[in-house]
């Protein structure tokens, strides 16, 4: 349940950038949140609708990009998307996986008018 704290931060970032751009209104917000970040999308939108009332971002739609976990084996260089928490390399069977994708957690862009 840290969606509230996360949403407050998103709103602050969006407000700052929208004001800098002298926008009248924020229409949508693109978020990139990797699969390893446990965030419930609907929950963030719910909090956002509430927190953004009477702000420049009121009514903005949150667009989530959720990159899947991608691993790279340090032993053989193979990259793959694991199906579960068994991160054994499917090619060389070593346990030397590095997370290449899936930890993203940022506001990518906003659409304003």
């Amino acid at each position: 349940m840290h969606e509230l704290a996360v949403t407050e931060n998103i709103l602050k970032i969006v407000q700052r950038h929208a004001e800098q751009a002298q926008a009248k209104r924020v229409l949508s917000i693109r978020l990139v949140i990797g699969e390893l970040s446990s965030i419930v999308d609907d929950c963030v939108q719910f909090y956002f609708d509430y927190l953004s009332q009477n702000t420049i971002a009121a009514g903005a739609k949150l667009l989530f990009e959720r990159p899947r976990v991608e691993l790279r084996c340090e032993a053989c260089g193979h990259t793959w998307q694991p199906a579960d928490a068994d991160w054994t390399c499917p090619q060389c069977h070593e346990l030397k996986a590095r997370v290449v994708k899936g930890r993203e957690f940022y506001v990518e862009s906003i659409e304003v008018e």
Partner: protein
Amino acid sequence: MSQIPVVERILGANEDLAAQNRRLLEAHGVHGINIMAAPGGGKTTLILRTIQALQGRRKIAVIEGDIASTIDADKVRAVGVPAVQINTGGNCHLDAVQVQKALAELPLEDVDLLFIENVGNLICPVAFDLGEHTRVALTSIPEGDDKPHKYPGIFAAVDALVVTKTDLLPWVPFNLAEFRRLVRGLNPDIRLFEVSCVSGAGLDEWVQWLMELTARK
């Protein structure tokens, strides 16, 4: 209508404050350890046993994070170690702001090792940098050996994992070999410890590691 690039970390404000906390600890020669586990995982008990084992060798302080109550901080103070209780009032994790306030109440000049006991939770604490130097997770034997399947994020994010309550292994189905294999798969660099705070088994190795991490003032 126009698209404005932002590319800003959502928890950037927390991460900036965490960096301040880390600098404050370093200025005082304090090594911070963020302890994360499920409720009942044995965090407070491990901290208490560690305080006992490091008596006279390292000066310890503790920040206790809980939704409510001062039970944990009271236990730590009872053994003569400075402790600050943070009550998050429902929040599922500690954040860098709360830790910054707590640090102001501790005699940092007289501390070598700071334990920050996070709120019992395997999900949310992982996302919030507190300014610690080392992240440690605990899994207790009764929780079951399937936790890496269910919460891969925490196992992938910590420097060390302490398996606690190993004295229960004879009575609880827990495949330790498979558990170790999964954990090492999620995190090839992880340090693994297996301890029982009841029998004391495995504590020496854990304490030795802490001694290596911290310098004495």
